[in-house]
């Protein structure tokens, strides 16, 4: 090997600036967060009282915490069904030889919402859900289902579903795109062989497509579930956790505890929970990723 590339000091010089950024603004805050969660403190008060694990005890008795966990889980399940499940089927159909010539158009359109800011999408959908001027009730009226019309974000029974639906609208096309790229790597012979055997489209899907892109499906599922536990923007923009606390997720609960109620210590415990959940899921993803490096 070339000597130039074995000089450890030069190598480190190239890496250190980026590393410092990451250590200072990504890793240090995580450690600080764990520490912060052991104290009672306010944002504009230098004084801190050590409370140990008291806030963790309180968190596990807080009904809002369980609402938030439930809502994050709902997000995860809905995203698995729509983004991964439906996304997979849509991608497979777009790869079908009868549909393929339309693929560029559809995949471009389906993907489009995922480049728009979640906050913008949230604000737009808030208007679409508006009971007086919104398109959603307008469509229901037009198809003669007026009794379904309601204040979608103002009704605590349905608000969380309305919010979750927006994410599906925004990101299903993203997953379709990921699956399409994976599917395009499947050798054509597999499909030819399936055709010669007289396999139906559905059989080909389950016996050729799915096993061939198994890794991508697993990784996509984990990414989606992690994303479901990171949710903040759309909920904050559309409902801020309301009506009542019915649409609260971990992210908005953390924000409210910290910047509305000024209970920084309590908010930090929620941060720790988010950390533990996302870390666990990421470790699962890394394990899955190892079994198939080329994802």
């Amino acid at each position, binding site marked *: 090997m070339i000597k130039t*590339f074995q000089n450890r000091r030069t190598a480190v010089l190239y890496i250190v600036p980026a590393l410092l950024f990451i250590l200072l603004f990504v890793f240090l805050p*995580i450690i600080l*967060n764990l520490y912060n969660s052991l104290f009672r403190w306010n944002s504009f008060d230098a004084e801190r009282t050590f409370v140990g694990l008291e806030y963790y005890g309180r968190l596990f008795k807080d009904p809002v915490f369980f609402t938030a966990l439930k809502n994050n889980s709902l997000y995860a399940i809905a995203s698995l069904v729509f983004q991964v499940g439906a996304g997979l089927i849509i991608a497979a159909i777009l790869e079908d030889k009868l549909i393929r010539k339309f693929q560029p158009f559809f995949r471009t359109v389906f993907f489009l919402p995922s*480049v728009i800011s979640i906050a913008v999408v949230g*604000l*737009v959908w808030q208007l679409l859900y508006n009971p007086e001027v919104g398109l959603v009730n307008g469509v229901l009226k037009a198809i003669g289902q007026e009794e379904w019309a309601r204040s979608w974000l103002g009704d605590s029974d349905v608000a969380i579903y309305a919010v979750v639906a927006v994410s599906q609208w925004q990101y299903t096309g993203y997953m379709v795109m990921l699956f399409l790229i994976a599917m395009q790597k499947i050798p054509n012979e597999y499909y030819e062989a399936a055709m010669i055997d007289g396999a139906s489209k559905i059989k080909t899907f389950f016996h050729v497509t799915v096993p061939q892109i198994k890794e991508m499906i697993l990784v996509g599922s984990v990414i989606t579930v992690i994303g479901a536990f990171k949710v903040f923007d759309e909920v904050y923009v559309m409902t801020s956790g309301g009506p009542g606390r019915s649409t609260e997720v971990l992210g908005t609960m953390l924000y409210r505890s910290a910047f509305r109620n000024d209970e920084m210590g309590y908010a930090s415990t929620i941060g720790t929970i988010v950390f533990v959940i996302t870390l666990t899921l990421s470790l699962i993803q890394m394990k899955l990723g190892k079994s198939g490096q080329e994802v």
Partner: protein
Amino acid sequence: MTIKNSPIVQSNHVIEIRPSGQKNSTKIKDRIFQTVVLIWFSLFALVIIYPIIWLGLSGLKSNSDFFLNTWKLPEEWIWSNYQAAWDAGIGQFFFNSVFVTLVSVLVVLVLGSMAAYGLSRFQFKGQNLLLVLILSGLMLAPQVSLIPLYKLLQGLGLYNTYWAMILPYVAFQLPFSIFLMRSYFLSIPRELEESAIIDGCNSWKVYRHIIVPMGKPIITSCALLTGMNVWNEFMFALVFVEDSSLRTIPVGLMNLRSQLNTNFGIQLAGLAISALPMIIAYILFQKQFVRGLTAGSVKG
């Protein structure tokens, strides 16, 4: 003759008919399949496109037009709504977003490509540890860092400045860019650099004159993805800045909503202005977008 001939003719006829008959039935099936799928996908495309078009068009309506004719084209195309939204603050937010995005992207590209170069070309002890450390930055949820970063930025005297957004953005975008660039750099053949080094080039010259030019495709993808993530970021921008004059577009729009509570036309015009740059960038640079997104398979 006719009697003798006819079965032959008939059998010929049958043989000819059978395969084409089968073909016909599969053809019909294919047609049905194609039609059903096209209807389904077109509906789905409509559900996706319509709100976006509705957004652009409603931004051109007067308030009464908006309330009375939700569905129709604007009665009068009020382009001044866009001007009004721009003047109501979007102009300032837009400038802030452009500045924050450009600086963040630039820093990410420079530091990221250097780190990726260091990690893909050099061989040294502790290399894997560094790589794992940097890449594990990929999986951390920004919420976890929110409160400590808020205090940290206050402590550094950066709270409520552009840097309160730029520095965390750079830190959170770097791992993904390094990940993408490193795997691309690994695929660049080494012969060129080897001969360059024999000719007396040092490692910096190799980086500047070989790696960066050859890595252009992935660097473009990284620029687009980082740019998109920073342009769209909401939570940090909401918490780390409090002056309305420093707000970026997503958070600024929230302010505008309460300010223009009843004027929907102007509000929608503002939303359209903020969504447009990303839509245009995506349509122009679709290939680069998709390359970056799929090379990483990570959601922004």
